């Protein structure tokens, strides 16, 4: 909690922060005070996203309790409780009641719930999530409940039981599942993201390869073994295929990896430099950048690679297309047709070109799941003598109004939306080298997901 407070951005912090450490420390102190002073200051931010204006539910989450004396319980409970807390805390949907306010005796089963202790100060919780875990004969069972503690007559909102082999992974998955159930009910019917995945590029094997991880940074694993350079992983909407761009003997080609088969599957070579694949929301088409005809242009093809069609004709480079994730009826992409790269949108048939960014260096658009917003990497002041840094911005597509989400220095690039539209994952060099970070779509609750090697170009799964 303390960590996320300190990382929370300030609207008046500017890009010179990184070269003024004394001032940065000062700002940190000020920001902590502001955050302690609570929400009136937060309104100086332009807050956007779904479910805003709704008072967050105060949720108490006491640690789940062991139901028997099995020696495996302790380790699995730790994994479960940590994962479960983080999932709920990261969701941005609930306000977790600090554990220091909890009574000494916490419930592990429904009869143990004492409503008056939870629904009045100091916890003053509206909701209580509790439960237990037990390992029996190598199998682990988790029982969990969500109680509306203000409604003492009929408190149960949710009761769930999960069974699996007693492994650390199983405990983590159970925590994700139960957290998602709670977030779905308390977050206005939008599914949680605790079971979603993030794909990214890491050089920790010695080459840039595509890796995958759980949304919270756990379970990181290498997927491709190209031994050259693999970039721009993009997971298909159904999660079964991963398109990416890699340096092959013939140049930069789009390659296709099957997450079902755990190997590459065939995809045609187009010739020229082929970059930045992007899935249409129905999974039937790919947009990409290809220089097969000379300069880099946006093309669209079937998911199989057939029926390739050129969508742009401009002198400058056109790259990084992304579909309107809700309708599939428009693209956003990056073009250098007027000089420095800018973000544009156009209809899926290539008409109605709109320039979205007015200045600077604007790249890496990502379209929000609800279709209304772009997030992008933007250096608004750019050029000789301008020390502007690349930051993540949020733009309302209809009005072209924007808000800056990152302020804390470093180069920030490749934002990608979570499936619920509440989070953005991106790459940042703020820690000294490129790593993957995640935040809420209003720029708060920033935290780092990768720590080993250099990690870049995150892409969040569609569900």
């Amino acid at each position, binding site marked *: 909690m303390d960590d996320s407070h300190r990382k929370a951005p300030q609207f008046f912090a500017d890009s010179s922060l990184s070269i003024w450490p004394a001032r940065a420390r000062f700002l940190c102190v000020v920001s902590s005070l502001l955050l302690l002073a609570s929400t009136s200051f937060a309104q100086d931010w332009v807050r956007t996203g779904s479910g805003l204006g709704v008072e967050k539910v105060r949720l108490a989450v006491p640690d789940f309790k062991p139901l028997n004396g099995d020696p495996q319980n302790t380790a699995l409970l730790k994994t479960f409780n940590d994962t479960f807390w983080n999932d709920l805390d990261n969701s941005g949907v609930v306000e977790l009641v600090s554990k220091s306010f909890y009574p000494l005796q916490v419930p592990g089963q429904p009869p143990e719930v004492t409503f008056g202790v939870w629904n009045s100060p100091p916890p003053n919780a509206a909701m209580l999530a509790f439960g237990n875990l037990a390992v029996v004969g190598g199998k682990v069972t988790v029982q969990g409940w969500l109680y509306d503690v203000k409604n003492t007559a009929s408190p149960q909102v949710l009761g769930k039981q999960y069974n699996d082999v007693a492994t650390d992974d199983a405990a983590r998955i159970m925590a994700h599942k139960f957290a998602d159930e709670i977030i779905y009910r308390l977050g206005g019917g939008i599914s949680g993201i605790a079971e979603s995945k993030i794909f990214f590029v890491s050089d920790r094997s010695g080459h840039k390869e595509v890796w995958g991880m759980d949304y919270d940074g756990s379970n990181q694993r290498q997927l491709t073994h190209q031994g050259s350079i693999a970039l*721009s992983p993009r997971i298909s909407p159904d999660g079964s295929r991963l398109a990416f761009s890699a340096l092959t003997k013939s140049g*930069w080609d789009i390659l296709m990896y099957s997450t079902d088969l755990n190997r590459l599957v065939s995809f045609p070579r187009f010739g020229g430099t082929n970059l930045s694949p992007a899935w249409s929301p129905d999974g039937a088409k790919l947009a990409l950048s290809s*220089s097969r005809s*000379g*300069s880099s242009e946006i093309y669209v093809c079937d998911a199989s690679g057939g029926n390739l069609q050129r969508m742009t004709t401009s002198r400058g*480079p*056109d*790259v990084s297309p992304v579909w309107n994730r809700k309708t599939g009826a428009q693209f956003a992409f990056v073009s250098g047709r007027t000089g420095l*790269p800018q973000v544009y949108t156009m209809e899926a048939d290539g008409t109605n070109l709109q320039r979205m960014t007015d200045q600077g260096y604007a790249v890496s658009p990502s379209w929000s799941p609800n279709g209304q917003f772009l997030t992008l990497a933007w250096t608004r002041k750019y050029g000789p003598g301008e020390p502007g840094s690349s930051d993540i911005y949020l733009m309302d597509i209809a009005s072209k109004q924007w808000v800056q989400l990152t302020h804390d220095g470093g180069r920030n690039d490749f934002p990608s939306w979570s499936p619920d539209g509440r989070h953005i994952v991106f790459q940042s060099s703020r820690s000294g080298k490129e790593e993957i970070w995640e935040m809420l779509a209003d720029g708060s609750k920033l935290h780092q997901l990768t720590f080993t090697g250099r990690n*870049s170009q995150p892409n969040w799964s569609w569900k």
Partner: protein
Amino acid sequence: MKRVNGKKINMKQHTLKSVATVVALSAILMLGACKKKAAPPPPPPPPPPASPTASISVSPDTIQKGQSATLTWQTSNATDVSIDGIGAVQPSGTQQVSPADSTTYHLTAKGAGGTQDATTRLTVTPPPIVEAPPPPSASEEDLFGQNVKDVYFDYDKSDIRADQNAAIQADMAFLNQHPNINFTIEGHCDNRGSTEYNLALGDQRAGAVKNALTTAGISASRIKTISYGKEKPFCMEDNEACWQQNRRGHFVYQK
């Protein structure tokens, strides 16, 4: 023996001269048929046997081991000419020699008038190791590396800068002289900006250099292009000098 031989030769010469004299006299007689017959002059006395002359030279007089030199010799009044180490030779001639070590060539010319010697010396130096001719392909690659200049670009630009035309001209001159060399042009960018955009920009840079060469007559079939964007920088620091090093079209010899 010597004398006998010398006399024999002299007699032969004498006989030839006598024959010539007779012929000449016959001609005079025939031409001057109307004139009074004159009494034939007495035969000239036989000349004393001439002593032989000999000279020998070598050109060049210094070679590296493995090279050859030309030995040239001339003799006169010699009936028996030989060179040590070569054996009997014509009275005059030339011969290519390629000795492994420094050699003194000793020519002996023997004739009725005596014997004449001549010598010349050919110095053979060991071949210098550093100047050993490398295999032809490596040499071509080295030449390529020495002569073909990279082309540098302005920030976020892919058009050929005016001050880069000299590099293009130098590249053209070399590539025209070596029409069998194929090569790759790599497009590179500095480390600012986005991975994906820089790959497209690097692609445009490589294409711009290729276009400049093909427009000037270099066959497109000799040229491959590849973009490295900001993936393989030449220089890792964050300053303009370093960034400029990274914004380039880089030529790579194709083996």
